[in-house]
């Protein structure tokens, strides 16, 4: 299978007061198209940092990240925004929905971000149809006019997944997507991921829970800032 994203010896450290904390100490990994990969590790092992680097939300101190032929850590702003908008969809542990927007608008947000005011009227019906479709798929058809604070945790996370999939990105990154949910709701989210993966969606999911990681097709374990297996 074709490699979709690959890292070479990436290192990342943070300054904590006067001490420099090395979080990633040379991570090499490659993820193939259509894989469902779980990144596991103890708290502080650097798994969220790794996910942020894969999603171009952060840059490594050294090493390289390649998305297909593109080197992510050297992308200019314009291409970086394009990558974040079109290539990757992010699902956060705390949902991170925009409180001022309705469920439907939240789902449409990535599409709205890439459409100008002039082009909006002609594209709106198509975008809306896509958002309706995704929200219906995740059981949120009746909640489209609600605000995020009117939803349960599971519903919010499903809105976040719909938003992440809005622009049909080749890569879906999820940072502890069930970490803030009860086990039954979390199970539903995992089922949704498995379903998406079955349809060919590449997913990289960070979790500290080995049982959740078992649902993925491959597990990468981080230990002390390095890939263990």
């Amino acid at each position, binding site marked *: 299978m074709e490699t979709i994203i690959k890292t070479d010896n990436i290192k990342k450290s943070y300054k904590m007061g006067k001490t420099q*904390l090395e979080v990633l100490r040379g991570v090499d990994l490659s993820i193939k198209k259509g894989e469902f990969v779980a990144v596991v590790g103890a708290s502080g092992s650097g798994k*969220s940092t790794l996910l942020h680097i894969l999603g171009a*939300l952060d840059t490594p101190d050294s090493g390289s990240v390649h998305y297909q032929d593109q080197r992510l850590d050297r992308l200019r*702003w314009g291409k970086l925004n394009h990558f974040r*908008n079109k290539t990757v969809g992010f699902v956060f542990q705390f949902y*991170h929905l*925009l409180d*001022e927007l309705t469920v439907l608008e939240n789902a449409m947000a990535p599409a709205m*971000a890439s459409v*100008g005011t002039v082009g909006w009227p002609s594209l709106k019906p198509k975008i809306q149809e896509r958002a309706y479709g995704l929200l219906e798929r995740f059981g949120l058809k009746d909640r489209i006019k609600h605000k995020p604070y009117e939803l349960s945790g599971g519903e919010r996370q499903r809105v976040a997944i719909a938003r992440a999939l809005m622009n049909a990105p080749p890569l879906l990154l999820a940072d502890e997507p069930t970490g803030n949910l009860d086990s039954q709701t979390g199970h539903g989210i995992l089922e949704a991921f498995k379903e998406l993966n079955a349809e060919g969606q590449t997913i990289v999911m960070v979790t500290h829970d080995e049982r959740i990681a078992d649902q993925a097709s491959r597990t990468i374990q981080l230990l002390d800032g390095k890939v263990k297996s």
Partner: protein
Amino acid sequence: MIKWLLAWRYFFKRPISILAVVAVALCVFIVLVVMTVMNGLLRDFKQKNHNYAGDCIIASDSLVGFGYYEDFTSILEEQPYIEAVSPMAKGVGLVHLKQYKWDSGIEIHGIDPLLHSRVTSFADTLHYQKQTPEDAFRPQYAPQSDGCITGIELIPLGRRKTDGTYLYHDKPMRMELVISAFPLNIKGGLLRSLDLVSTKSFYYSDDSHSGLVKVDGAVVYIPLEQAQILCGMDSPIKRISSLHIRFADGESVQSSVAKVRRLWDEFVAQNINKPGGSLFSNVRVQSWQQNRRSVIAPMEKEQIMMTMLFLMLGVITVFIVFVVLYMIISHKSKDIGILKSMGVSMSSILGIFLLFSIFIASTGSLVGSVLGWIFLYKINDLEDWLYKNHNWQLWDRTVYAIGDIPNQVAPEVLAIIVGSAVFACMIGALVPGLQAARKKPVQSLQVNQL
């Protein structure tokens, strides 16, 4: 598209944005009211000076005046761009009002009332002879006597009412004013060595209300020939202090003044060697603005000072908007991270906050303008009400020569104020907006967990 939607929602959903709108509205309101009143007072004051002086003034700096004015008046009257010319003889003197045993220093203005009314708004300043300025120096109660017109504030009879208007009798009161002047010879010395002062009685025929305190409080108008005699300007060559000119309608004051200046220079060159020709060196040809500069400039300075003060108010608005936006951006740090993780560009994020500031500025300006307009529309009624109910006036009309408070909103002033408010708000939004736009997504999301 998302920047419009979010800016709009932030504007409507954030109670704090009401504070910013109120701040902008108050600033616009205050600046609009003050600028309208100040501009109105200045415009009114300039207009009164223009009305008093005419378009162009050929005036001597010396009380001695200058001669051969009739020759030059003939030249001027031939010019197509000149409507009318009026000579004026000026002098200083004393007035004694017999029946009130009252004396005062005065400025004597000798004029031909009809000519002067064609050049200036002199006739409009009169009360009894407004329609017949040619009879202005003919007292109704003694038509054969020499009449005089006093500035309305000259004789302290307490005729000014609290609303700024004046008490008039149906007919002019009989008053004999004895005017004394110091006649000067061509060299500027006293004309007669034995009889140092010229004195003559005049009978009050009308008031002149120009609205200029210094004129209305000090000037007595008498016939030109009488003024020339009193001031020693009748011989050996007849002299005057100034020629007032009105240009034809549609003629530019600046270019017409330049033309008159050229004519005057030629005239002086031809007549400089005549007796009294040396007096031409004291004469200047000026536009009304130049001639009245010394009285207009202080008021203009005052207006500039007020404008500067209100610019400082504008700085405060910028600061308030800056604080409001800074608070909003601090609260919206997570949103910025979310937007960046979706690929929203820096310029779009900056655009959200700039649009937000424009919404604040536009709404605040609209509210402030409407309130300001209503307040100005009612300002005179409000002042009347305050005076009737609380005995308080903004300007005591018994002290200040002001009629109604100017309340005409100038569209260009309103446009400048609103434009400045929008600009100020955008500046206030720029710094926190840029700070927000430059943040890394992970910093904004505060998800840089290890």
